[in-house]
Each structure stands twice: as C-alpha cells, then as structure tokens.
C-alpha cells in the first residue's frame, strides 16, 4: 500500500529525477538520433536533407572498420560466454566442496574490484612479445608456443577475450553461487539415495532449474560486451590496424578523432538498436516469469 497523505511533496521531490531522465536520457537520445540524419561534421548542423537522410547509415555499412567492429562484437560475445561456463563450474565446485570456500571466492572475485584500465595494463604487459609470458615459455623450452597475441591482428581479439574472461568469471560465479544456494537442498540427498551420478544430476536437474540465472547471466554479458571500451583502450587501442575495433570504440573514435558527429551519431544509434535487441528478451522473460508466478499463486 502506498501513502496518500500529501500529494504535492512527493511529486516535488521527484521533479529533479524526472528532469534528469527527460533531459539527459530521453532528450539526449532524441538529439543523437536527429543528428544521425544530418550531415554534421565537427559541429552540429540541424538541417536534414530528406533526399538522402540515411546517408550516414549507408556509409556506415560500407565502412570496413564498422564491419570489423560488428564481427569483433560477435567474437567477443561468444568468447566471453566462456566466463559464464567457467563461472558455473567454479560455483558448482565451491558449492559442493565447502573447504576453502571464502578463500576461493575472494581470489576469484578480486579482478572485479579493479578498473578495466588496470586489468588491461596488466594483461598488456603479460602479452609483451619480448619480455612477457612468451619469452618465459621460450626460455623453458616451449619455443613452439606463441603468446604475443596482441601483436598480431588475427589473435589480438583472443587476448582481449582472455582478459575479459579473467575479469568477469568471478562475477558470474557469484551469481551462479546464489542460484545454486537457492536450490532445495533435498535434491542432493534424494539423488544420492537413488544413486544418480553427480554429473547427471547437474545436467538433468540443476542446470534446468537454474535457467533463469543462466539467462540473466547471458543478458548481462551481452550488455557488458556492447559497452566494452576501457579494456580495448588499455590493451590494444583498437590495433594492430583496426583489428580490435568494437562498436563502442568505433563510435568514440568517430566522434573524438575523426570529429564526425553525424557519423558517430549513426554508429551510436546502431549501438542502441543492438542493445534493444538484447534487452527485449529480458523484458519478455520478466513478464513471463511474473505471469508464471501469478499462476502459481492461483
């Protein structure tokens, strides 16, 4: 139940938040969408040439750097999904084996506390071709191994994926651990009584029971991947060449280095579209969940 005492004060108190939302979010998004139809270069121009309103977009999809960005986005998304798998395995093991739980949790989660610039700096150093891990591998005789991934256009993305997985696995482990703890503890003893092997229990019972946790993780991961920017700056700055461009990096590059406002706006609108595509399932999922809960109450 909500209070019905005063009508004015709460509405007054909500004014700042409402203004911020209207101006800094809704208004700003509209502004950027509008700009994406103009020919704005370094400074905004507000005339739209209706005969070719989509020129920034058609240019965008002919731009190799943008196509590389989209491809890298998918690569990064699929690669980072390893963090969910890894997080689940770690969570399942910690959950079953109680020994050292808090120690392992602390170690797996600390990368989350530091800035992605720091993470990038550390991994950039370890991937150093002359003095980094590759050098170490060669010194101990594994001369066939190559670990200077960031230096080569075809492997640089994998370097970024490795750093991202390192950074975020602990987070998915925490979410999975929470999911595992909410599972009824009786199924473990029931399975033991029935002599069901543990791996079958996980695959056939536990994972299906945790499908909401998995979907949540997948959506959070996708949103994180779309926003990936800091780690790219710190590790490769988009290079070698343009091989590690992602949409977030491309957009900011178009705005700050090339000074092309209309073009950057078009790229930003595409980012919003990609976010919406990922976001829609979350809304639908929540609605479905609510309906299911409502039915369960009935």
């Amino acid at each position, binding site marked *: 139940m*909500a209070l019905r*005492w005063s009508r004015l*004060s*709460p509405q007054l*108190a*909500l004014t700042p*938040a409402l203004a*911020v*939302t209207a*101006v*800094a*979010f809704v208004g*700003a*998004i509209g*502004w*950027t969408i509008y700009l994406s139809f103009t020919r704005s270069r370094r400074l905004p121009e507000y005339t739209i040439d209706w005969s070719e309103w989509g020129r920034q977009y058609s240019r965008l999809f002919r731009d190799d750097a943008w196509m590389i960005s989209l491809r890298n986005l998918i690569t990064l998304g699929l690669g980072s999904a390893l963090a969910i798998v890894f997080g689940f395995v*770690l969570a399942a*093991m910690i959950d*079953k*084996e109680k020994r*050292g739980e808090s*120690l392992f949790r*602390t170690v797996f*989660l*600390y990368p989350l*506390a*530091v800035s*992605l*610039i*720091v993470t*990038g*700096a*550390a*991994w950039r*150093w370890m991937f*150093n071709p002359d003095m*980094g*891990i590759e050098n170490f591998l060669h010194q101990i005789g594994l001369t066939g191994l190559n670990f200077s991934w960031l230096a080569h256009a075809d492997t640089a993305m994998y370097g970024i994926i490795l750093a991202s997985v390192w950074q975020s696995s602990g987070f998915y482990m*925490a*979410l999975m651990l*929470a999911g595992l*703890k*909410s599972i009824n*503890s009786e199924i473990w003893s029931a399975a033991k009584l029935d002599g069901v092997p543990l791996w079958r229990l996980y695959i056939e019972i536990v994972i299906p029971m945790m499908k*909401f946790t998995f979907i*949540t993780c997948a959506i*959070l991961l996708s949103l994180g991947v779309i*926003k990936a920017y*800091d780690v790219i700056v*710190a590790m490769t700055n988009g290079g070698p060449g343009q091989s590690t461009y992602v949409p977030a990096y491309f*957009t900011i590059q178009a*705005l700050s280095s090339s000074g092309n406002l209309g073009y950057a706006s078009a790229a*930003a*609108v595409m*980012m*919003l579209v990609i*976010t919406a595509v990922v976001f829609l399932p979350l*809304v639908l999922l*929540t609605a479905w*969940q609510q309906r299911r809960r409502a039915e369960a109450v009935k």
Partner: protein
Amino acid sequence: MSELTVAQRAAGAEIAIDRAPYFPRRKKMITGRSIAVLVFLSICALFFAVPLYVVVVTSFKTMAQIREGAIFAPPSMWTLEAWDYAWNQACSGINCNGLKVGFWNSVAILFPSLVLSIALSMVTGYALALWNVRWAGPFLFLLFICAFVPFQIIMFPLISMTSTLKVYGSIWGVALVHSVLSMPVLTLIFRNYYKDVPQEILSAAIMDSGSFWRIFFEIIVPMSGNILIVILILQITSVWNDYLIGVTFGGFNAQPMTVNLANLITISTGTVAYNQNMAAALLTAIPPLVIYFLVGKLFVQGITAGAIKG
C-alpha cells in the same frame, strides 16, 4: 513493478537465503573427488592470482632486470624507484607531474558524485516506493530502460549540456555526469529496498502527522544503514574505476587517475618503462582493492544488486 526480478532473484538469494541446516554427521575422511576438486580450484586460483603477482613483482624491479625477460622471477633487488617515479613524475600527455595529480582529481570527483547521486536517488527511490504517485509505474519502467542505455548515444548531448552549464572539463562536470548516469540504477536499488518497509511503521508515521520530508529524515534515513553502505561501496568503486566519463568530461584539468594511467600505458614513443607502468597500475588499483579485501561481502552485494549496470 518488478522488472528487476531476474537480476535480483540471483542477487537477492545471495543475501537472504542460506542452505537449510544439515544434520550433524561424523566428520568424513577426505575423498578422492574432494582432492581433485580442490586441486582444480587451486589451479584456477593460480590463474586469477598470476596477473596480480606479475604486476607486483614487476613494479619493484629495475628496468635492467626486466629486460632480462624472466617475468615471473622475484626482483633481484627490491626498489621503490618505479613507484616514486609513477607517483611524482610520470607523464600524462604533456604534463609530467605523476599520478598524484590524477589521484587527487579522482578524490575530488568522488565526494561530490557520491553526495549528489546518493541524495538524488535515495529521495527518488523513497518517493516512488512509498508514496502514491500516479505515474510511478511508467517512470520506473523508463528508469529501468535508462539503466541499459549505452553511453555513446547520450555522449555528445551531454558534452553540449555540460559546456552550456560551464562545467565541462571541471571536477564538477565529471561529478555531475557520474550522478546523472548512476541515478537510474541507484534509484531502482533504493526503491526495491524501501518497498519492503513494514506497513506498521508507516501507518504509525502517518498517524504522527508525518510529512513527506519528516518521514524521510526521521524514519527512512535512520533505517537505511545497510543499503547505504552497500551503495556507497558500489559507487566508490565504480566512480574510482571509471575511465570513459573521466576522459570525456575531464578536459585537461580534471582527468581522474584512470585516464593518467591509460595515457601512460598507451604511450608509444620512447622506451617504455614497464616497472613504472605496473607501479602506476597498482597505485590506481589500491583504493578499490583495499575496500574489497576489507568488506568484500558488501562489495559483492553491491555489484550483484547493481548488476544491471553491466
């Protein structure tokens, strides 16, 4: 409204639900499976710990030893030279006054952002959760969407607005943008916390002729200790670790520490002093790491509650 349920089911369980108590039983001998699991977990722990180890040892080495190339070897001679250099002389762009400039900028950005963002979202969350505002539902949904919007789509308009307000390139500009961008998520967290305030307390408060602001200051603020500390930790770490807002709105004079660090490590001219880079990285990482190792549990609660922040 419970759009948040998916993320929060996962997050909330961490806080609220513990495994049902088991019956006491004899202490078992350690099984082969347990040993295998522990070995696997230890190897994973090593994977997580190695970068920190490498960064720490590198920061204490001399460049002469680093050039020999044994990345895992401990320093043959421990030296604080690189730390001193990173703090006092490292270059960020054309300024060579070290990371201490960025450190104090980060501190100066932190306090106004904390006060502004928490004050704004706490009041908003309270009003939306407990008072009968007709458009509360649609507004919450809008906030939920805003929490996911990529920064790039509002970047240029925000730059324009902050220049119009004459705060672009200042500490206040960066703090203001932090407060604006964190408002949706923090409001949703506060609102979800306040909507469970027990009915009896509120009815009593109304009887007591409590006005909106009196109820807020006399009842709501005193009972918000737990959530405030979680949000405080979430905000401190996210403001401190931010790079994008700092680099976009900091101009030349208000760059936070992460921007200095990024400038230092991405520099491509001259010989790169890796020991200084790693010392700089550690200096940037120490404040959030200290918080994490002191109050890790609260940190995890904050991160999972703010998970929608992505």
